[in-house]
């Protein structure tokens, strides 16, 4: 004679999972997976692509970033200035001065090609993300604002080895 072992119906196991999760939310011993956003902020990875920062003095307006951007959202204007020669009687050197360097964050795809191709260490990624505006025109960050973002660029962190 086969022994009769009743199987627990599947939906009761499902209900048990749901009620156990309810007690996990209420108990103070389980970590809360939620971040109460405006009052608490999440810890973002240092490599996260939040906003691009510009080091004005390093930029030579070579236009590589503006050319490689897939959306063409970087606007650069510059002019050349003649500097006094470094040794008396020498040739006057010309230096590129940046007039305008705007990144339009309404168009930017956050791909990072501009940061990668810059040969002069002028662009950096920063994980800041709270710069929404009410006005679409305010999403165009000019070079002063991009310079301000430099303070938020993190140090490169350790690698797994």
């Amino acid at each position, binding site marked *: 004679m086969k022994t009769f072992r009743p199987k627990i119906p599947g939906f009761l196991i499902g*209900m048990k999972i*749901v009620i156990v*999760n309810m007690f996990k939310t209420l108990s103070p011993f389980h970590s809360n997976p939620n971040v109460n956003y405006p009052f608490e902020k999440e810890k973002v990875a240092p490599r996260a692509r939040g906003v691009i920062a510009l080091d004005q003095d390093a930029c030579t307006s070579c236009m590589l970033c503006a050319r490689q951007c897939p959306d063409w959202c970087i606007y650069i204007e510059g002019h050349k200035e003649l500097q006094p020669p470094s040794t008396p009687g020498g040739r006057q050197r010309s230096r590129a001065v940046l007039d305008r360097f705007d990144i339009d964050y309404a168009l930017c795809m956050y791909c990072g090609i501009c940061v990668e191709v810059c040969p002069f260490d002028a662009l950096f990624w920063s994980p800041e993300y709270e710069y929404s505006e009410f006005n679409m025109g305010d999403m165009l960050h000019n070079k002063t604002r991009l310079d301000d973002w430099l303070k938020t660029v993190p140090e490169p962190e350790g690698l797994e080895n």
Partner: protein
Amino acid sequence: MTDVLIKVGFVALAALNGAVIFTIMDVKGASWMQRRPGPLHVGLRGFIFPLAEILKFVQKEDIIPTDVDRPVFKWAPAYVVISAVALFAVVPLSPTLVVADLELGVFFALAISSLSTIGVLTAGWSSANKFSLMGGLRAAGQLIAYELPLILAVVGVVIQAETMSLVGIVEKQIEWGVPFAFSGQIVAFLIFMVAATAEMMRVPFDMPIGESELTMGFMTEYSGIRFLIFYISEYMSMFVLCAIASTLFLGGYHLPFLPVEWVNIYGPISLITKTVILGFILVAVRWSFPRFREDQLQSLAWKFLIPASLLNILVTAILKVVL
């Protein structure tokens, strides 16, 4: 005249409070089951959010689409809320604290609760929207199909208690010492809870609302206070059906080992506690089950619940005659 007014006021207050308690339990319970805190910033850790919801709906614009059948559209919420509120008049909080202790208490309750079918069907029909129409037609079939197990389950209790008045049924349970749910009517209890869930159109029986297909089904075109009436009447009917279930099957206002003179004090507390426990089970079921398809729902009612409840009546009647 004044006592009629007092009774009317009491019924309205009880209905609103019951709806608010169950709204809090449903929404906060749902959030906790989903590992999130739920409404948090409204006040008192979020527990007064029903007030905020009511105010929100009241201040919304009342949009009536152009092609609807206007008088039918406007009256549909009324049928649903009248059938939910009128049931509060027969639920006894104690042998003396009851708005109307009718001789045919249970009969009255079941008759009035079936009025909501018209409201749902006309809401679906009169909204000039194919999806609402489908929701309304599904609801008509479902509500009519699940009236029968509801009534037949209660018939078993009435046979065992020999009276249809709700106070009388609780007195009979006191006489027996054990609530009816554990003294022979367990099958009827389960059938009643399943049929009540279907009558309220809650998951797993919420095909008429069918949120992922019909985005609110028959209620899609309603906005503002009219939608608030539908929404609140669902919670009101949930409260009152759970209260009736705890009166019929779990002993209502009676708690054992307590002196009878104080029943006016512990009666309401006991009834509300039992109602909240039953409501919690319904909430846990809502948030863990998928929904039935319409034809599976109907075959569950006609092929399974009705024969089971008829069998229950047969067995109860035989035992009543024999014992």
